[in-house]
C-alpha cells in the first residue's frame, strides 16, 4: 500500500490473489529503478567528465577488473533469486484453490462467455458471485483459444478446447469488475468482454434461486432467452443491423443465397444445420466464423430457438 | 601430399565394406530383437541402442568424422544435445500436465 508504483496497477479487489502480485510488482520496479538510475547516472557523468577535449587525447589501458565484474554479476544474480522466489510463491498461491471454493462453469466461445451454475442457472457475459467467498471458475472453450482475465483480481488463464483450466479469486467488495479475453480469437476478440458482478452473499442466493434451471416461460420466450444465453447476439442482431452474421430480423422463409451459388429458402432444417454445423452451408457475403454448436445445445433447445426466430420480423 | 592432411583421409575399400556389412547385420539384429517382443521399456531401449550404434558407424566412418577435425564431431554432438534439450524440456510439460504443484 502506498508504494511508488501503485499508480500503475488497477484497484485491488481480491487481496488474497492480488496482494503478493502487487508486492512483487512494486519490488521489481523499485529495485530496477535504482539500478537503472545508477547506470544512467554513471553514463551521463562519464560523458560529461571525460568528454573529448582534443583529438590527441590519451586514454589509459584498462582491460578489466575482476572484483568489479564479480560484484556486478553476483548482486543481480542474488536479486533474481529473490524475484524468482517471490514470484513462485505468489504463483503457488494463485494455483492453490481453497478447498471450500464455490465452483462455477465457464465456457468461452467466439465471442462470449457462457456461465453455468450448479443449479442450472445460466448467464451470458455476467458472472454473479457472492462477496467474501473463494470462487473457482472451471473453464473450457468450444472453439479456439481464449483467455480469461480480471485485472482487478490479478488472475488470468487460457481457456482451451477439450481441456479444463481454472482460476480462483475472492472478491472482498460488492460491485462490478471487468473481464477481458486476452488470447487473440478473431474479429471480435476485443468485444469478448464480460463482468464479474459481486453481490452480498444473501443477494447472491436470491439471484441464484430465481434463475434456477435456466430459461423459463413459453417455448418462444425460452427461445428468446436461449438466443441471448448462447451468445448468438454477439453476431446476429434482431433489429436488422448487420453485425458479423446475417440479422435474425425477417429470417424465416427468406431466400438465402449461399456462397457456393445455390439459393435456398430458410426453413427449420436449414436453421438447425446452421446452428449445429454452420460450416456446411455458408451464407453469401459472410465469413465462416460461427463455431459449431454441436454438443453445446440439444434438439429441444434448437426447436425453441427456431420457434423464436419465426417470430422476429 | 594432400592425403596427409586430416581432411583428406582415404578410407580403404575393405574398411568401407566392413562398415556396410556391420550395418546390415545390425539391421537384421534389430528386426529379430523386435520380433522377440521384449517387455516394455527394454524393447525401445534395445532398438535405440542398435540404432545409435548404426548411427555411430555411419557418422564416424562413412562421414569420416573419425579422421576429421574434432570440431565437426562437436557440431554433430552439439546438434544432438540441443535436440535432446528440446525434447526433454517439452516433456517436462507434456508428461506432468496433471501433476499437482511441485513442492520444493
Amino acid at each position: 500500500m502506498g508504494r511508488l508504483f501503485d499508480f500503475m496497477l488497477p484497484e485491488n479487489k481480491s487481496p488474497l490473489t492480488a496482494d503478493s502480485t502487487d508486492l512483487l510488482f512494486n519490488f521489481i520496479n523499485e529495485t530496477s529503478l535504482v539500478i537503472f538510475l545508477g547506470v544512467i547516472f554513471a553514463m551521463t557523468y562519464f560523458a560529461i567528465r571525460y568528454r573529448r577535449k582534443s583529438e590527441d587525447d590519451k586514454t589509459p589501458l584498462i582491460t578489466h577488473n575482476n572484483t568489479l565484474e564479480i560484484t556486478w554479476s553476483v548482486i543481480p544474480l542474488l536479486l533474481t533469486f529473490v524475484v524468482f522466489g517471490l514470484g513462485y510463491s505468489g504463483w503457488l498461491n494463485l494455483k492453490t484453490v481453497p478447498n471450500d471454493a464455490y465452483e462455477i462453469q465457464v465456457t468461452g466461445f467466439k465471442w462470449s462467455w457462457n456461465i453455468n451454475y450448479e443449479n442450472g442457472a445460466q448467464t451470458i457475459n455476467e458472472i454473479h458471485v457472492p462477496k467474501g467467498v473463494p470462487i473457482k471458475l472451471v473453464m473450457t472453450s468450444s472453439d479456439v483459444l481464449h483467455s480469461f482475465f480480471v485485472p482487478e483480481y490479478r488472475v488470468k488463464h487460457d481457456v482451451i478446447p477439450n481441456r479444463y483450466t481454472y482460476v480462483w479469486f475472492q472478491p472482498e467488495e460488492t460491485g462490478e469488475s471487468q473481464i477481458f479475453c486476452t488470447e487473440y480469437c478473431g474479429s471480435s476478440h476485443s468485444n469478448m468482454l464480460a463482468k464479474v458482478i459481486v453481490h452480498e452473499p444473501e443477494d447472491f442466493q436470491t439471484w441464484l434461486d430465481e434463475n434456477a434451471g435456466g430459461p423459463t416461460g413459453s417455448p418462444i420466450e425460452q427461445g428468446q432467452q436461449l438466443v441471448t444465453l448462447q451468445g448468438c447476439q454477439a453476431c446476429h442482431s434482431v433489429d436488422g443491423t448487420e453485425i458479423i452474421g446475417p440479422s435474425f430480423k425477417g429470417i424465416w422463409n427468406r431466400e438465402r443465397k449461399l456462397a457456393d451459388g445455390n439459393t435456398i429458402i430458410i426453413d427449420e432444417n436449414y436453421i438447425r444445420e446452421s446452428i449445429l454445423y454452420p460450416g456446411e452451408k455458408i451464407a453469401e457475403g459472410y465469413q465462416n466464423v460461427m463455431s459449431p454448436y454441436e454438443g453445446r445445445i440439444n434438439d429441444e433447445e434448437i426447436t425453441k430457438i427456431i420457434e423464436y426466430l419465426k417470430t422476429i420480423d | 601430399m594432400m592425403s596427409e592432411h586430416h581432411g583428406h583421409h582415404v578410407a580403404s575399400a575393405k574398411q568401407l565394406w566392413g562398415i556396410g556389412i556391420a550395418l546390415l547385420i545390425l539391421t537384421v539384429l534389430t528386426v529379430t530383437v523386435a520380433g522377440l517382443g521384449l517387455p516394455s521399456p527394454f524393447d525401445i531401449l534395445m532398438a535405440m541402442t542398435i540404432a545409435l550404434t548404426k548411427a555411430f558407424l555411419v557418422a564416424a566412418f562413412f562421414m569420416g568424422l573419425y579422421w576429421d577435425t574434432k570440431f565437426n564431431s562437436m557440431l554433430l554432438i552439439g546438434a544432438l544435445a540441443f535436440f535432446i534439450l528440446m525434447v526433454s524440456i517439452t516433456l517436462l510439460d507434456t508428461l506432468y500436465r496433471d501433476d499437482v504443484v511441485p513442492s520444493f
Partner: protein
Amino acid sequence: MASLSKTENTAQITPKKLKVKRFVPLENPINTYLTDEKGIWAWLTTVDHKKIGLMYLGAVAFFFALAGFLAIALRTELWTPAKTFIEADTYNQLFTLHGAMMVFFVLVPSIPAALGNFILPMQLGAKDVAFPRLNLASFYIYAFGAIFTFLSLANNGFDTGWTFYTPYSSDTNSAGIIWVTLGVFILGFSSILTGTNFITTIHKLRAPGISWDRLPLNVWALYATSIIQVLATPVLAITILLLAMENILDIGIFDPALGGDPVLYQHFFWFYSHPAVYIMIVPGFGIISEVITTFSKKTIFGYWAIALSSLAIAFIGFLVWGHHMFTSGQSAVATTIFSFLTFLVGIPTGIKIFNWVATLYRGSISMKTPMLYVFIFIFLFSIGGFTGIMLGALSVDIHLHDTYYVVAHFHYVMMGGTLIALLAGLHYWWPKMTGKMYNEPLAKTAAIFIFIGFNVTFLPQFIMGAQGMPRRYYNYIDQFTPFHQTSTIGSYILAVGFLVILFYLVHSLIKGQKAGPNPWNSRGLEWQSNSPPDFHNFSHTPVVIHGPYDYHQPMEEFQLGLAVDHEYGDEQDKVAAEAHASSATETTEA
C-alpha cells in the same frame, strides 16, 4: 575506483622486429567496389558481400518503412475507443502484418544480413564470406519469401497475430495463412544460410594474426547469433510446415478438435521464437561494443566478459522459451523451471551493460551521432530488459501476460534495442560503405526526435498494460483513452524522426562530403581500408598484429604493423604471418 586504472602490458608487441610495411589507405580511391562493376544486372548477380549487404539494407529499410507505416495506421485507429477509420478485420490483419514483417523481414535479417554482411569479412581481413554464391542465394530466398507474404495479402490476408497460434490459425479458412506460412518457411532458409556462411567464414577465413582473442566483439556477437540461427530456425521451419499441413490436411497434431494439443504448438513456436529475440538483439550488442570503444577512444572494458556473455546469452536463450506460456496451461514443473532460467539471461546482459559503462570511464568521449545512439540504446534497452525481468516473474506475468505491458516491453527491446543499435551501426559505418559523410546536426536532431517520440509512444503502454489493457484489441474501454492518445501522438513524433533520417541519408549520398578512409580514427581493421573499400576489401591481405581496440597506442605505430605490402602467398608474408599468428588460425597453414 582507483583499482580500475590497473593496466596490463601483455598486449603490446613491438612491431619493429617484423618485416611488415605500413599500409596506407587512399584518401581518394579511384576503383571501389561501387565503381568496379556497373549496372543493375551487375548488382543483381553480384557475389560481393558488400553489395549483397547493401541490397539487404535496402530491402530491410523498405520493409521497415512499410511496417512502420502500418504501425502508424494502427496507432491512428486506436485514437478512439471504437472505430476510428478502419474495420476490425483490417485492424487484425494490420497488426499481424506489422508484427510479422518487423520480426521476420526487418529485425532478424537487419544487423546480421545487412550490416554484418558488409562488415564481417572486412573485420576478419577476408576478401569475402566463405560462400559468396550462397550469400546471394540467401538474399533471393529472402526476396522470394517476401513475395509469398504479399501473395498472402492478395489471398484474403491473415489475421492470426505473428505467433500463429493454433487452433485459430489452423481452423481459419483464409487462404492467406498458407501463403504466409510458406513465406516464413522460405525466409527461414535465408536466415539459416546466412548463419552457416558466417560460422564458416569466422572459422576459416580470418586473416593471418587474427586469433580468437583478437576477434572484434562484433564478430563474436555475430558468431553467437549464427549459432542460434542454425540451431533454432530449422525448428521454426518444421513448425510452420506442420502448421500448414494442419491447415490444409487437418493432420491433427496441434488441433484439439482432432485430438491434438495446441500447447505443443506453442512449445514448437517459442523454441524458435524466444531464441530468435536473441538473434535480433545480440548483433546489436556487437555494434554497441564497436561504437563505444571508437568514440571513447579506449580499449573495451572486459573483452572476454563481453565476448563470452554473447555465447552465454545464446545458450541460456534456448532454455527459457516457456516464459511465453505461463498462462497457457503448461505443466507446473515446466513453468517453474522456465521462470527460474529466464532470470539467468539477465546476468550476462547486465555484464555487458556494466562493461560498456565502465569503458567510458577515463575515456575521451566524443558525442557523435553513433555514440548518441549508444546512449539511447543503453537507456531504452535497460528499461526493456528490466520489464522483461518483470514478465519473467511468475505471479506478475499472470497479471501482465498479453497486455500492453508486454507490447511495451518488446518495443523497448526490439525498437529501443535492436533498431537503435542498427541506427548506431548505420551511422558509424555509413562513411565506410558510401565514402560520404552525413549531416551531423540533422542526425542528432533526428536521434532526439526518435528518443522522445519513442518514449511518448511506449511509456504510456506500460501503465495501461499494468492497468489491464489487453493487446490485439481493436476496441477498448473508455478508461484507457488518454494513454492510447498519448501513445498515438508519440508515434507521429517517431515518424517525423525517421523521415528526417531518410532525408539526410539520401542527401548524403548525393551531396555528402568525402569521408576519407577513417573519419572516426577507429582501430578496427575495417577502417584500415579505402572508403568505399575496393572490390577485394583490402588491396593486400592484412597481417594483423594488434587487437581491434588498441587505442593506447599511437595511430601511426598501429597502422605500421597492420598490413604487409605484398600479396599473401609471398614467402616473406608467410614468415610474418606464422610468427604472429600465435594461437591462430587455419589460414596460416600451408
